[in-house]
């Protein structure tokens, strides 16, 4: 196996030493390929590769070469990966990265490389595009607040929750998710009397569990991975029985598949997400079929990461096609094409950019349901089309409310 890899990389080295023809376009893809996120990060790469495969690997006779680099979820490593791609491999376009802080880091880096076009992978920090954006950094996707659109409204009007307590990890992504939820929920008249910000990687939530006020109607939980498992287990063991509302990364399939005693709490729990793996829209089915055909060893359906890397890479090849691979003059024509690009996304919506080069997206409200065989799954209860980064608000008012933090927004 390793020998094969070695041979392959030796071949790749040889291939690199052959001078590439002037029209070849090099696309660098940055994702997390090491550590606990490696399996998911790999799926991001699959998404980008799929978009290139669908074009046959070339646009108007210009070959597209994909080079992947790994980061380790830290912004420093993402920057190093990008620098290697640009300075050593000479890429024209970068697709990535995966996580929020990395996205902010690459947004800043992009200002130093006006000759390279950056397309965000799946990172969802708000300020990557909203404040202090960069002319050559594009996001064909949403931010963490957009990913919660529809949920606050659904919780207040459909579920009838008037008062919700929040348990979330103490960093920027959950802050943004809370903003997306509270913007609608508070506007509808709901109250959030208390927020519990817990350090990421916290294992023992028992003291938080007992601090949750008894008079709230539900809990909004924006925790990821092990943190979510730990919190939900301990909450249910302590006899907690408030209904749960999930963030975009809280109630994923691995949590639904785990055997924790908290499963009964989750049935009926709504959550917000831009990607539903078993969505039954026609475009999504076609996308899934194309994905499983290209990557038989991939997941059973594209993940949120494959979905987002795919959209970015697809935007890149479509814009390249439009300008016949012309990347002259610091990508001027190519970027103009990106700015005006419109295409149908795998979720059936129309992707286009706002003036900050941030995507106008589709978002889903899902709920956990019990399948016939007793296992749990997420199903779509609502699709919200054309969600923009300002969450439908007036730009000035939205910006005036300031950057998200532990205390912003607030409606106790």
């Amino acid at each position: 196996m390793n020998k094969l890899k070695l041979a392959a990389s030796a071949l790749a080295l040889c291939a690199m030493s052959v001078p590439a023809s002037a029209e070849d376009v090099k696309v660098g893809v940055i994702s997390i390929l090491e550590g606990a996120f490696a399996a998911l990060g790999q799926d991001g790469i699959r998404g980008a590769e799929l978009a290139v495969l669908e074009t046959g690997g070339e646009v108007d006779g210009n070959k597209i070469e994909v080079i992947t680099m790994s980061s380790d979820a830290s912004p420093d490593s993402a920057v190093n990966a990008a620098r290697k791609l640009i300075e050593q491999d000479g890429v024209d376009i970068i697709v990535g990265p995966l996580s929020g802080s990395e996205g902010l880091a690459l947004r800043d880096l992009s200002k130093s490389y006006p000759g390279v076009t950056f397309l965000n992978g799946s990172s969802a920090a708000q300020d990557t595009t909203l404040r202090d954006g960069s002319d050559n950094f594009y996001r064909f996707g949403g931010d963490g607040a957009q990913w919660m659109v529809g949920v606050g409204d659904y919780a207040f009007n459909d579920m009838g929750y008037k008062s919700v307590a929040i348990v979330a990890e103490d960093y920027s992504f959950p802050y943004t998710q809370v903003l997306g939820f509270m913007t609608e929920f508070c506007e509808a008249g709901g109250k959030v009397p208390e927020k519990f910000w817990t350090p990421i990687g916290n294992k023992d939530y028992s003291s938080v569990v007992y601090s949750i006020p008894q008079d709230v109607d539900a809990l909004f939980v924006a925790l990821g991975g092990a943190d979510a498992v730990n919190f939900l287990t301990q909450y249910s063991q302590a006899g907690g029985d408030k209904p749960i509302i999930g963030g975009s990364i809280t109630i994923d399939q691995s949590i639904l598949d785990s055997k924790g005693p908290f499963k009964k709490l989750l049935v009926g729990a709504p959550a917000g997400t831009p990607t539903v793996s078993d969505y039954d829209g026609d475009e999504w089915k076609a996308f899934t079929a194309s994905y499983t055909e290209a990557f038989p060893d991939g997941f059973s359906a594209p993940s949120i990461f494959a979905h987002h890397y795919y959209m970015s890479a697809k935007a890149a090849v479509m814009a390249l096609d439009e300008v016949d691979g012309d990347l002259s003059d610091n990508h001027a024509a190519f970027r103009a094409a990106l700015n005006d690009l419109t295409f149908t996304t795998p979720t059936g919506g129309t992707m286009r950019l706002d003036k900050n080069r941030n995507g106008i997206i589709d978002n889903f409200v899902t709920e956990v349901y019990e399948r016939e065989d007793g296992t749990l799954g997420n199903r779509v209860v609502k699709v919200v089309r054309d969600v923009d980064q300002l969450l439908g608000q007036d730009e000035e008012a939205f910006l005036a409310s300031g950057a998200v933090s532990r205390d912003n927004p607030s409606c106790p």
Partner: protein
Amino acid sequence: MKQALILIPLLALPLVLNDFWLTQVATRSLILGVMALSLSFLATYLGVVSFAQATMAGIAGYTIAYFGPNTVGVGTPLPFWVTIPMALIFATLSGALVGLIARRSRGIYAIMITLAIGVAFFYFTRQNYTLFNGWTGFSGVRAPEVAGVSLRNPLLLYLLSLSTAGIALALVSGFVRSPLGLTIQAVRDAPGRVLALGISVTTPIVAAFAFSGLLAGAGGILNVWYQERISSFSVGLGPIIDILIISVIGGLRHPGGAFVGAVVFVLLDTFAVDLIDRERFNTLIGVVLLLIVIVAPGGLQQLAQDWAARLRSPQAKPKQASEHS
């Protein structure tokens, strides 16, 4: 003469290397080398392995970021001729503070108390927003401009890092010959006797840590200019262990070895992905570290010296790896 032999090729490097090799490999090695030097200095002359060097470097970096131009809107910009000395002073003071806390701990105890300080600082930066901007940290940090040219320019940053490394090495060799430096080594060899002479061991220990803080701070400033950002990730367990690995590869008891270790580490970090599966990078680095510890406890520097000695006089026995263990 010997210095010139090393210095001339190093000065000529920018002529043969492209920007990537110059910045990502050469400059990065020098910067990491300066940080690792601060650890090797402590290990060599005080006999203490400190895990808090990334913290001291981080304090200098955070000072530059907080009092410099950044894009997160935290802090107050000051001119760079104020922030640079200030960053060095803060790093030195933080070193002194670590020394003061750890002054009575030796050997493995010192490892663990400095590790605790490092991890505590990491969590603090992650949670505090007013000074450290939490998880996200500072981005858009720009190196100062001199006569309209940014010091982040590949050639300038390389030359700056090279001269910093040179000055740091010279400072170390001067410092260890000074009366204070000799006292520090006496504390390493026979703390009891130093006490018996009526000299406090606290002062030399704190001074050694403070000096290592100064070195780490210099590396930290260069690093924040190089990365153009700093966050809690920059002072976490990853960088803490990286600095240790670099020092061990180079040889914990040879200050100059820090740079050898840094070059090896940077090459592995940058190019291992082309040779092995990126996912298994940590196994590779772990195996390299383990081999060094088992086969060459004196590090690559010592290994090279032994070979050189053997080549020169085949009969001569290689010098003992550690004169003072």
